[in-house]
């Protein structure tokens, strides 16, 4: 299945693209996507604890399963003064 990945701010820069398409095995979870990306970009490792994820525009968990056509967003910490 394919999903669309979007990332913002520092994560967008780290992934070197605001969005991309990803081919995943059926029943892949958000966490599987993270591990794929962390293999390509080892600097992601230290950022998992502070990153929130959104599935189709709603906050989600790393344990959530994805389905064909989902949009997965990677959100660095917010909270600017």
């Amino acid at each position, binding site marked *: 299945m394919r999903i669309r990945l*979007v990332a*913002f*701010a*520092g994560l*967008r820069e780290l992934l070197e693209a605001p969005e991309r398409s990803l081919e995943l095995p059926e029943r892949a979870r958000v966490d599987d996507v993270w591990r794929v990306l962390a293999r390509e970009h080892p600097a992601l490792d230290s950022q998992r604890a502070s990153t929130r994820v*959104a599935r189709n*525009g*709603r906050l989600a968990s790393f344990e959530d399963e994805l389905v064909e056509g989902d949009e997965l*967003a990677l*959100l*660095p*910490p*917010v*909270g*600017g*003064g």
Partner: protein
Amino acid sequence: MTPVHFFRIVGEAIDSHMLDEIVGSAHGGVVTFLGVVRSDSGDGRTVTSLQYEAFEEMALREFETIAGEVRQRFGEVRLGIVHRVGEVRAGEISVAVLAAAAHRAAAFDACRYAIDELKRRAPIWKKERYADGSAEWRSGA
């Protein structure tokens, strides 16, 4: 009084008057917050501009959620929020929040709650650009 709020994320300069239209004849108190980019970074460096980036659909939904909380907490309040994205230079407005209510206490409470929660929760990020050419994503209060 119908709950007509006004939420926008814009790429151009914010005119604080764009929120005036939500003020109705039942509103005796109108409180506006303007966030302005400061040239002082707080750690001694000179900021020339901020680069704002938003996850727009989610940010707008968060504004709606905040507006719902405002009305639950403070009663009949109309809320307007405009946030700028892209490059915002020092001295320019990055965000405007307007709260209109029958009386001023609710308008103050609503405006302050809305900007505090927006800063805390809305998926909007900022990168500070400094006079020395460096730049840095900032989060946290």
